[in-house]
């Protein structure tokens, strides 16, 4: 029983990072209509920036904001410089983002190297509650994710910006006629998703080592989370992330850990075939050209 709780708590922190990535993808894919294959690389860049700053002696929590700013700026440049021109041809944008992920990955290898990077645990405390070890940093990661989820959820469902955003997804032309600057919202969503990727990267490197190839692993999980939950659906991303975390935790503790990734992939393929709109439903995503 104790191992089960231990596994579940550990996988909750892993699920948190996955949820952050998933929310970014679900917003960008479902609301801005862009499939960004390089989103995992954004996370990796965030982790690398954190590593660089922390090794230069900066406090982790300051470095975290540094990573978010760098990745957010990266998102802004990429959206304005690349995806803006493929909004009416989403398939081309998708293929372009593949090229972008290859570029980012190898630029990072060129600047640093291929060796995995770690930072010392920024908090370095372990709480023992009822025989279960809880690493403080993991609890902080879960807490930060919970805050982000709440802010994003209410931002989209309650605030006037969220309403305007959803209006421009429902009917772009009418929304534009109502005075909603649709294009600015697309850019805004893209930057917000990128900020979350930067945050995810910073939190991830606080828990695990990161290599320049982490992005391609993370992106599959991110797609899985957002598609399982339903595109554009923040709650769905949370459900998807927890589901994947649960599958991971259970398979690592009880099943065969070497098949861990396969379970989540099979789950995602099954959901896509049986319920293409995701478990909780969402926008069907951009129409294929």
């Amino acid at each position, binding site marked *: 029983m104790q191992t089960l709780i231990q596994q579940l708590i550990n996988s909750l922190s892993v699920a948190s990072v996955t949820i952050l990535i998933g929310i970014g993808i679900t917003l960008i894919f479902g609301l801005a209509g862009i499939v960004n294959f390089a989103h995992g690389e954004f996370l990796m860049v965030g982790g690398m920036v954190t590593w660089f700053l922390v090794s230069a002696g900066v406090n982790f929590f300051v470095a975290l904001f540094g990573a978010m700013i760098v990745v957010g700026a990266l998102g802004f440049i990429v959206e304005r410089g690349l995806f803006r021109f493929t909004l009416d041809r989403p398939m081309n944008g998708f293929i372009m983002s*593949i*090229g972008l992920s290859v570029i980012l990955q190898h630029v990072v290898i060129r600047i640093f190297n291929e060796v995995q990077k770690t930072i010392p645990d920024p908090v370095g405390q372990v709480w023992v509650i009822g025989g279960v070890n809880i690493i403080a940093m993991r609890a902080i990661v879960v807490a930060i994710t919970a805050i982000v989820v709440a802010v994003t959820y209410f931002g989209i469902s309650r605030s006037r910006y969220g309403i305007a955003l959803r209006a421009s997804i429902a009917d772009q032309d009418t929304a534009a006629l109502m005075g909603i600057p649709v294009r600015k919202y697309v850019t805004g969503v893209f930057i917000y998703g990128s900020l979350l990727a930067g945050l995810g990267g910073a939190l991830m490197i606080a828990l695990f080592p990161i290599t320049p190839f982490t992005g391609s692993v993370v992106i599959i999980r991110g797609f899985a989370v957002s598609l399982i939950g339903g595109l554009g659906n923040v709650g769905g991303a949370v459900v998807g992330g927890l589901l994947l975390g649960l599958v991971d935790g259970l398979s690592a503790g009880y099943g065969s850990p070497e098949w861990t990734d396969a379970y989540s992939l099979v789950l995602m393929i099954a959901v896509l075939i049986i319920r293409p709109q995701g478990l909780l439903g969402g926008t069907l995503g951009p129409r294929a050209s």
Partner: protein
Amino acid sequence: MEQAVSPTPVTRTPNRADGKDKPRRFDAPNRLEIITGIIVTLFLLGFPWLNPGYRILSLSITTAFTAVALYGLALQFGQAGIMSVGHSAVMGIGAYTAAILATKLGVGFWVALPLSALLSALVAGLIGLPSLRVSGQHYIIITFCFCALLVIALTNGGSFTGAATGLDVGSIDPIFGISFDRLKNAYYLVIVALLLCIFAYYLITNSSYGRTLRAIRENEPLARAVGIKTGFHKIGVLMVSGAFAGVAGILQAYYLHHIAPNLYGAFPSLYLALMVMLGGPRLLYGPLLGAIIVNFLPEIMHLDPIDSRIAYGISLLVVILLLPGGVSAGLLRIYRWVARSVNKSDRHDRA
């Protein structure tokens, strides 16, 4: 005969009473196509006579079998509009089929070749089944997942798939006394396979079947409405494409003499997609051009692997933004522009 089985009205004009104006099953090649075809064939077959040296020749072999897989991908994406970023998984099925047949049953290259193609086609059809329900980017993500799944399965396959270290493959059995251990002979084998693939691609794109596929690409609901069995044809073209990939896989396995799961993972798949977009998926020599550019660019420009990958990425962005039809479409546009201005100046001379 096939027409009676599966009527494809969009490609058939109604038959007139006098029997004239029947739909053509194949479009006749025009002069430009014949001339470029002869030039390309002669160049590819005559390449070893230029004494390219060991390194360039082995690079050409890699290029050629990659191009075989690319022609399959071009068929499904360029003609039928179904993109895949997991195509090297299908290639891996072909390669592993050959390797497992060779190591476990002692089956040689020539027997394994059709079996690899067949099994790859079946697996490609299986991977394609979700395409009946989801389309566009969703399907692309599914193909990527299948690719990741295959790598996990191969890595965990124990001694059957050789786990992470992979399997060793022997050499191709000599046929008519020709040993394919000589690099030049291996080159001819791969090039013949490539030429056959290009020819098959040409036949398909210029037949009524190719028109059916393009109808599905342009407007699937409309194609279905006029009586094309879109699901049947989608799975069909994926299987044809899979067979191409299977042939590429077995050629790669026997050329490298050793295969491992990471040859068929996410990155090789992405590079296949990249090459086909770079060269241009819709024109006859686009895939070949893409394979040549990606394989030879680092050699010519003396780039190390990291720089060359950055260069591929950047060139992909440039091609998508500026030349959506790929490099081949750009070349064709330049050719037409030159041809037109030559014609114009002719007319000026006469006038």
